[in-house]
């Protein structure tokens, strides 16, 4: 039994890592009242940025991923904060554009046939001793650097949102921007920052896919993870620890799916894939009181001063 569970847990954490990175960023963005539908675009841009920069080494690859995500974020912030455009429409357009741009650039630069490129990857960092713990050892203590970074970010984001002045300011903007403005909070500046942070983490999630997992790039390899991250944030009720748990649940569902698929079990594996989404809808319906969405989320008219 253990030899089944341990690899399953390992796969769960591996799948959850990029999801959680993107979702933690999205948590910050949504807490400031902005829903980043361009997150999917930031992730694919991050994948491509990592691919383009990884010739200079793995670290440069990560930097390239963040840069790709930031590029999408800068455009989104220009529209949402600068021009007060509708967040959802601007975000959808950017995701479309990022798919098109990365796909085109990939074919133009790396050839049309899509000879699968292979890039150097980050190996797992095995923590001596702890990785030897039965069942959970390898899942928690033999993962690539990005997993540890993600796990470290959870308390950090939590501390920032709930224990600092600027975190309080950010949450105030997401609840009632007009009141935040009167309180002297620079709404436009913080919303811009929240979009940039979220998009950068989205880019990092994309880089993780390339540099720490796939070791290659393919068109649309983000595979909807930006949209899944939006679901993860809602399921995690806009709280960092909840978001981590939700990301692990989505990761587990997809790990289970592969297990069932490979064993050719009679259970339709789509059920496992669909389950987290159905659960998210239920949680959204049930969460009318505690842990609801920021009140000003996705409101165009209050997007800046």
């Amino acid at each position, binding site marked *: 039994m253990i030899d089944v569970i341990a690899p399953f847990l390992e796969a769960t954490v591996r799948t959850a890592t990029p999801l959680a990175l993107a979702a933690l960023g999205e948590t910050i963005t949504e807490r400031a009242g902005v*829903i980043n*539908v361009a997150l999917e675009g930031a992730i694919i841009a991050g994948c491509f940025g990592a691919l383009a920069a990884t010739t200079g080494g793995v670290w440069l690859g990560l930097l390239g991923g963040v840069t790709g995500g930031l590029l999408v974020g800068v*455009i989104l912030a220009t*529209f949402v904060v600068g*021009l*007060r*455009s*509708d967040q*959802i*429409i*601007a975000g*959808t*357009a*950017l*995701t*479309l*554009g*990022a*798919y*098109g*741009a990365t*796909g*085109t650039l990939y*074919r*133009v630069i790396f050839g*049309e046939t899509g000879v699968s490129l292979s890039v150097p990857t980050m190996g797992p960092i095995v923590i001596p001793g702890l990785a030897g713990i039965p069942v959970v050892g390898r899942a928690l203590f033999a993962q690539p650097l990005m997993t540890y970074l993600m796990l470290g970010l959870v308390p950090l984001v939590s501390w920032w949102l709930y224990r600092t002045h600027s975190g309080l300011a950010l949450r105030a903007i997401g609840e009632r921007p007009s009141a935040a*403005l009167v309180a002297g909070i*620079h709404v436009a500046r913080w919303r811009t920052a929240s979009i940039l942070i979220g998009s950068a983490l989205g880019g990092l999630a994309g880089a993780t896919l390339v540099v720490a997992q796939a070791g290659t790039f393919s*068109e649309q390899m983000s595979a*909807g993870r930006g*949209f*899944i991250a*939006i*679901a993860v944030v*809602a399921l995690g009720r806009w709280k960092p620890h909840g978001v981590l748990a939700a990301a692990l649940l989505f990761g587990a569902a997809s790990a289970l799916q592969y297990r069932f698929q490979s064993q050719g079990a009679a259970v*339709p594996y*789509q*059920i496992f*894939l*669909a389950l987290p*989404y*159905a659960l*998210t*809808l239920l949680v*959204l*319906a049930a969460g*009318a009181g505690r842990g609801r*969405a920021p009140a000003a*989320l*996705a*409101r*165009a*008219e209050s997007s800046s*001063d």
Partner: protein
Amino acid sequence: MPVIVRTERGAGVLAAFGLPVGMIAVLMVLLAVGGFDVGASMAALGRGAAGSLSIFASSTLVRATPLILTGLAVSFAFRGGVFNIGADGQLLAGAAAACAVALALGSTVGPLTPVLVILASGAAGLMAAAIPAWLRLRFGVLEVISTIMMNFLSLYAIGYLVRGPLQEPTRVYPQSSTIDVAARLPFLIPGTRLHAGFVIALVLALAMWWYLRFTASGFRVRVIGANPHAASVAGGVNTARGTTGIFLASGALAGCAGGVELSGVTFALYENISPGYGFTAIAVALLAGLNPLGVILSAIFLGGLAAGAASMQREAGVPSVLVSVIEALIILSIIAGRALLARPGRVRGAAR
């Protein structure tokens, strides 16, 4: 949440005619930057989209058909203040229902079959929209989030259907059997692939235009979209009921797109039946200024662009995904243009 994407009339006309021309220019610049032969690429694009009347009908108009229907779905929702970005999922639900009904009926009801198939697809799209509509009505759940969930759920449901109950009899391929000839939409012009779904789309566009312009109920839809608060306080409009109705109608239209695509083009159900029609629909709707008749033109423009891009890839080696960049640029230039044209007066002074 007033929708602010509707353009002023003058700006709308400018967008409708200036933007496509501008986008062709942008495309040519992108091609030149990418090191492609601009002349040869554009010639291939032109041939693929409208090289002859029959190519125009078979490629451009066939691609425009689902875009008109999803474009109408998105326009109607946006006009009524509903951010339905689940048109893709509703389209999938429609296609699945159409397939199930077509396979169940076979040739038993004869020429009536396509009618029932399309009605089933509309009903399925409506039901797929009913869940996020109800969540919004009852619990105030943002439809952006819930329709994203529904897109995934629809996709997985199709994944299950084409490997389970609706899978073809040999059980090798993840797709359904081909539907009976009786269930297929008739072709309009012999020798082309243009099917009756195009007419359905045109009729629905006209109907929506008439409804929004000439009926009291259509007026209420516009009022709810323009200012829900004023609609309920001053207009005595039941906005909650109105919003739900708009959401359901939008879903039904997107569902029809799936039914029409299945019974007019693919004849079978599989997972990739929509290459993102529900998202391109946003570009279609905005380019049309949310006007139902404009949707016809903008869908033909974007359908032609997609058809042309396919031949540009075949003949000139230009990646066809470049079209997504153009779609994105269309949307972004429209919302940027709006923001710059309608700069809110600096009445409140230096707000900071």
